[in-house]
């Protein structure tokens, strides 16, 4: 991707470790993003207000507060995409952060390539939304959201209404990780957010119908303990 052809984006890094800030900044500036830094959540909120970043990279393990609260605060007045950095021990904080409205996550330690890929994906997704009404194609499958039709290899695939709702929820947010709660709420309704087994079963159906090898899915990826991600490529 050629960064110079796009308007340069502003990224805010909220992270207390200077070493990490430094390399993230170096990596992003190499791709000609404008970078601002904040070392506490308080400063992070302040900077978000003044710098109006296009993306926030937020460390969940900050000393002065809970990153999840930060996201909830932020979501009250801004829809700026948030990429969360989390350590493995904070596994469930990460899910909570995603439920609260974070867009994606990276597990420490992470590489530069991984970071840049996620940053690009998140900002691209935000630039394109909303994306309804189109025909979404991936591999040999195409989904017509308006006509509610799924075609694979030129053949119509029969899906149930709930399978279609689940498929829609996934394919309209390509690359984004959707938590179990989010999917259950969107597809079945708020009363169903604790019924993880529904998701397991219907996800299995979708993969059977749309993946060439359902055990090793290419498009509907499992983020174990977190949710699912639709990867069109």
């Amino acid at each position, binding site marked *: 991707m050629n960064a110079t052809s796009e308007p340069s984006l502003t990224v805010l890094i909220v992270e207390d*470790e200077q*070493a*990490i800030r*430094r*390399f*993230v900044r*170096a*990596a992003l500036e*190499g791709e000609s993003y404008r970078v601002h830094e904040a070392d506490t959540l308080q400063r992070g909120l302040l900077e978000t207000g003044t710098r109006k970043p296009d993306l926030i990279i937020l460390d969940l*393990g900050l000393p002065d507060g809970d990153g999840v609260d930060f996201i909830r605060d932020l979501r009250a007045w801004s829809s700026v995409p948030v990429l969360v950095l989390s*350590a*493995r*021990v*904070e*596994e*469930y904080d990460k899910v909570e952060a995603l439920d609260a409205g974070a867009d994606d996550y990276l597990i*420490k*330690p*992470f*590489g*530069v*390539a991984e*970071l840049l890929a996620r940053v690009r994906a998140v900002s691209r997704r935000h630039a394109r939304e909303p994306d309804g009404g189109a025909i979404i194609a991936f591999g040999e499958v195409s989904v017509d959201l308006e*006509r*509610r*039709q799924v075609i694979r290899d030129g053949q*119509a695939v*029969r*899906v*149930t*209404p*709930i*399978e*279609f709702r689940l498929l829609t929820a996934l394919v309209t947010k390509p690359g984004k990780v959707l938590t179990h709660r989010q999917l259950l709420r969107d597809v*079945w309704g708020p009363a169903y957010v604790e*019924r*993880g*087994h*529904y998701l*397991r*079963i219907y*996800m*299995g159906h979708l993969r059977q119908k749309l993946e060439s090898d*359902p*055990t*090793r*899915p290419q498009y509907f*990826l*499992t*983020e*174990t*303990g977190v949710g699912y991600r639709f990867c069109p490529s």
Partner: protein
Amino acid sequence: MNGHRFEPGPSTGHAPIEENRTRAGRHIGWRWRRSRTRGQVGLPGLLEGYGVALLVSLGVTFAAMPLLPYLDHANIVMLFLLAVVGVAAGYGRGPAVLVAVLNVLSFNFVFVPPRFAFAFDTLQSILTFVVMLIVGLIVGQLTARFRHQAQVAHTREERARFLYEMARALSGALTADQVVEISERCVESSFRVGARLLTPDDHDRLQPPSARPGKPETDLGIAQWCFDHNNPAGFGTDSLPDAPSLYLPLKAPLRTRGVLVVAPKQRRLPLVPEQRRLLDTFAVLMAIALERVHFAAVAHETLVKMEAERERSSVLAGLSHDLRTPMTALIGLTETLTLKLIAEQSPYQESLTSIREQAERMALLVDNLLDMAKLQAGRVRLRKDWQSLEELVGSAMRMLEQPLHDHPLRLRLDPQLPLIHCDAVLIERVLVNLLQNATKHTPLGTVIGVTASVETEWLSVEVWDEGPGLPTGHEQDLFEKFTRGHTESAVPGVGLGLAICRAIVEAHGGQIRTENRASGGARFTFTLPLATPPLVETDDESDLEPT
């Protein structure tokens, strides 16, 4: 005590027990009445009554002798009658009868002519005798009844006092030991018996009492039976009445909390029913006190555990953060530098790549150590949900895309596999560790497979390979921490992976084992318990028709 002869069991039918019980009751009742009349004053008191009767009779006789010239016979009889009333009021029926008889004799002998000789032929003397005897009996009877009532009232009051004192003492007890000590003391002082309270350990075995002087000898076999069957046993009961002590189960609302052993100081003197009732009430009080103390201890323990757990997880989280931050910076900075060196086509890029690889390995090691610490720290909190094994295998393989690239894979997952109730992140970790192990310890190109099947109530998952297999003899040791198949191996690792697998599988109630396959190569098998997944109730219709 002949413990081996003690064979309580289902052979004792229900009806015979009832029969035995009533017979035993009648037996005790009889003894009770007898001991009651005798026991109200005691043997020395009884003798004293009869002695007094003798003295009074003699005294009246001698006192009346000088009065004979001045008084009529009828009035002298009055004096004698007075003596009978006095003795009857003071000492009850027996001494009253004695004094009546003695008085009649001495009156007849001394005062009735012919003096100093017995003459029972006159109607007068017979009348005197009969009246005196009747008066003595009536007054004595009344006195006895009155005394008995006083005694009963006293006993009742005393019983209430004992109960009150015991309840008060028990309410202040903070530990089970205190309850035991207070209970034994109260029973001993209230019943004048030897008492012993036995409490069970965590496995419901009564703990053997320490031998102390003045304590009844206890047969742990009987006590345990009494505890297990929740039935009184021993002396005065239907089960093994030959035993020297009585064993009472302490029944609390939720369960039996112990056994009270009571040994009468005088052998062969069973407790009267009233005492038994009182003792039963005592037993209930003790049981409730023990239960209260037990739950107080449980609550306290839980609190301490929660505190420790919170402490531990905050230490682990802190440690994890502190270790991971430099790793992240190291890996990130190295990679930034690598990109730059590649652009400059520098000869150092290879060293830098190697630094990065080492840093990544170290990060993995830190992860493993922290995971092990977390799993070892005690109960891992499993975040269980209904998971599909197929999905977990798929995501484990995606995580190992690179190392698995050069290995042909054979997946045999039954498409009808039920959902399993497990912590997805942890079970995925087991699969990742086992697959990673297979890639590390087999040559490139070796076939690796995953097979899953249902075996009655278990899901069995095998991760196998067609590699060189395991060194024989120590297969199961591999699951120990820091144990590796070949100690001097060039394969990186410290031997935590399998230990983590075992900790996770065992936390789920499953088992993990390993063996060499008959056709060559190693096989790791773990099992997870199966349960019935909840129903899927959804108003999903048949297939969607395109609009």
